[in-house]
């Protein structure tokens, strides 16, 4: 099983990059959704 550690590292790090990107997307979506709700509420209150 020569180089098993390198194969494992390549797959693990590669998928970690995709996973981190996906987590940032989820975070950005939830932050923007909260901002959207806040703006909608403040606009409806001022009308």
């Amino acid at each position, binding site marked *: 099983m020569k180089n*098993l550690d*390198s194969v494992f590292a*390549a*797959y693990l790090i590669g998928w970690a990059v995709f996973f981190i990107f996906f987590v940032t997307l989820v975070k950005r*979506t939830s932050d923007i959704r909260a901002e*959207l709700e806040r703006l909608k509420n403040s606009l409806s209150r001022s009308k």
Partner: protein
Amino acid sequence: MGKRIVFGVAAVLLVVAAAYANFFVAPTERTMGLIQRIFYFHAATAWAGETTFFVCFVANLLYIWKRNPKYDWLGVTCAEVGLVCITVVLITGPIWAHPVWGIWWTWDARLTSTFVLWLLYISYLLLRSLIEEPDRRALLSALFGVFAFLDVPLVFFSIRWWRTQHPAPVIMGGSGSGLDPTMNKVFFFNVLVMHIFAAFLIVERYVVEKMKNDVELLQREAEAQ
């Protein structure tokens, strides 16, 4: 939202199936052994990244022509997803290269042009962050995106035009190239899976861009009151 979750779950299941095929279906390569199994993930991710940059290029051209903000959203979305794919390629490549070549990196034509591609799309995203006015930001980044895409064919043809450290192409490489039939099937299954996974990320990232636009519209409305 429901369709997006189903798409995400399907993409992840396909990724698991592709990983299974890479380790348990594809035969072990005679010269490199186990380390060659990085190829399926590394090359398929590179292809998905380059396709994503092509979609970005088309969106950039359509924005310049039609000035529809939806093309700008698609452009930045694809630039970001493509950049993530190329980041993975630039990480998995050296991990594969080190045991085989004895070095992590060399400035050969394929590696250098790929690194330049990565820098170009980082510049694309940096440029966007520096311009506040939305129409100006969209136009300038679309123009820069068209220029940045010129490096993609260079990356593709670099191992055909120059013989350097990176291996010659085994797919579409002309006579003398090619893969074992099972390896070929596993590789193209990986290409399909990585394209589906990239499409999933594009959908999720596009939603963020659309919502950002909604926030900007509401902010302008609030300021006008």
